[in-house]
């Protein structure tokens, strides 16, 4: 038993060494870029001719992040509370966007006439930024549904457009082969068209998720709830506390990155045959 454990340890140690060797360049470059970025940030905070950036140096922001995590903001709401609230809102909006945009995209991709009829409504709406919807959303919706709607609005169109494009780009040879072998229309759609469009649908979902996170600050402007990273940033802005604003921005970036990574992992597991997917 002891030998087994030691063997496993040796195996893992070797694997780690191999991984480290393979990633050495990336890690080195990553550290270098991060150092340069932090240095530029420090210089801007120190020498930029405004008093408002004095508290925004990397060390102050890091210490504010820790303080927000442990003690919370001036209302005692911790960074974890803010993050969880925003995470759930983005997740809900994104989920609704996936559920609504994917079937609609498939339908519109398959039936040109449906897209032709709907495009006069869908296309102009696509260009209206979520922030422009705020006054209307305030009057039409309440509480949680407001956030979901605004994030849905941001995430819906990238998923819809990518789904439609993926469906239309199905290789005609595959369809012809299936037809030759007597496949029915339903089989062609479920076995060829949709699976071949899935990579693009996932790409749309990743873009949609990013846009969803971008909408969170706008979405959290509308409600009166106290929690949310967007709300924290707005409060920091009102109080001219730039370190709080940057701390919130960092959290949005990190949580968004983590969610994006999860989609990539899911994508990699589903499309094992696609070599271009790297996590």
């Amino acid at each position, binding site marked *: 038993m002891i030998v087994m454990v030691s063997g496993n340890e040796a195996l893992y140690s070797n694997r780690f060494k191999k991984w480290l060797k393979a990633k050495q360049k990336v890690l080195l470059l990553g550290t270098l870029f991060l150092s340069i970025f932090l240095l530029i940030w420090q210089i801007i905070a120190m020498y930029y*001719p*405004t*008093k*408002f950036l004095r508290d925004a140096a990397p060390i102050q922001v890091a210490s504010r992040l820790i303080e927000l995590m442990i003690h919370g*903001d*001036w*209302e005692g709401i911790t960074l974890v509370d803010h993050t*969880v*609230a925003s995470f*759930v809102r983005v*997740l*809900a909006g994104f*989920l609704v966007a*996936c*559920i609504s945009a994917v079937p609609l995209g498939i339908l519109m991709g398959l039936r040109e006439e449906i897209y032709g009829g709907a495009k006069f409504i869908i296309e102009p709406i696509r260009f209206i930024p979520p922030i422009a919807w705020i*006054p209307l959303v*305030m*009057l*039409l*919706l*309440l*509480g*949680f549904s407001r956030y979901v709607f605004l994030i849905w609005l941001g995430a819906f169109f990238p998923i819809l457009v990518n789904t439609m494009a993926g469906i239309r780009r199905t290789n005609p040879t*595959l369809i012809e*082969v*299936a037809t030759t072998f007597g496949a029915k229309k339903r089989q062609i759609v479920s*076995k*060829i068209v949709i*699976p*071949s469009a*899935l990579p693009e649908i996932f790409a749309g979902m990743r873009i949609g998720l990013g846009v969803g996170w971008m909408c969170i600050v706008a979405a959290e*402007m*509308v*409600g*009166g*709830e*106290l929690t949310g990273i967007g*709300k924290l940033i*707005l*409060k920091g*802005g*009102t*109080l*001219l*506390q730039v370190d709080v604003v940057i701390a919130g921005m960092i959290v949005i970036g990190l949580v968004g990155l983590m969610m994006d990574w999860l989609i990539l992992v*899911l994508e990699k*597991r*589903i*499309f094992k*045959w696609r070599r271009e997917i790297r996590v």
Partner: protein
Amino acid sequence: MASKIAIGKPAMALIMAAFLVAGIVIGYYYAVFTIPKPTGLEPVRIGYLIADVHQSPFFIAYKEGWYQEEGIAPVKWEYMNGALEMEGLIAGEIDAGYAGCTPVMAAASKGAEIVILASSNKEGSAIVAKPGINNVTELNGMRVGTPGIGTIQDILLGMVEEKFDITVTHVDYTGAVSMLPIDLESGVIDAFIAWEVFCADAVVRGIGNVIYTSHDILPDHQCCVLWVSKKLYDERPDVVKDLVRVHVRALKYIQENSTGAQEIVASATGRTLAVVQNAWPRMTWGYHVNTESMITFCNVMIATGKISPEDVPDANAFVMGLVNESVLNTVLSEMGISA
């Protein structure tokens, strides 16, 4: 090729599982964190503006637990500005709150069912100019930032222009009042007029100096007020009375214990004590609403198109119908306060 790209049942199950987990997370959060738990007290959803020291009575009462003492479970709803707070009222999101009298009048003119019960603060605005400008007359021809056309501050700036026979360029910062000190420092504007604590913030940071206060422009003018929805006013007069009692206790505390009040407000709003201390002398705290100044503001709002004359043909009748101090007078009498 087709069999290679087709996704199998395990992959489909994975997608479904991911959606299911996400759904459970959302459902759990919604059920646990967004549905208020029963406390035995009367829940009242109270709106206020982020870190606004004009609404100090609310911050003090909340911090001291006076709402609970009067049988109310306060649910805080925080807004970026008065217009958004009024939209919260119209949407049925809040029952009561603190806001500037101008957004309340704008909302009421559009049919919002609202009653103003008492004053929160009076005055509390000032003109802050960049170093080197010490007099209002020196602002002639310069760029002065305001929190937006038709705001109390914009109206007050217009009065200054008239009084001193000067003309300034009004630079509109609607929805971005916190940008005023930043743009004053960078030289985009030469001065700004705003409510506290943005003036105090600029002074404490050494960016500018207060050259004229709203007291100098229109003494004792109304600023923020305590309001309730008409629905609450009609259906729950007991709760409304409790709310007013809490408010009166807070105002009394401010009047009698200024230092303690400033400390509480600094800690509740995230402002530094130095900033709150600097702002404090430029605000006054009384119980009664100054309807006369509200009528002045209302007329200017009509003249600038912020309120339609069709909606408010008579500013005097409109303001008198909006303000109802009967509950306040009863509470003051019961508490033995003569004001």
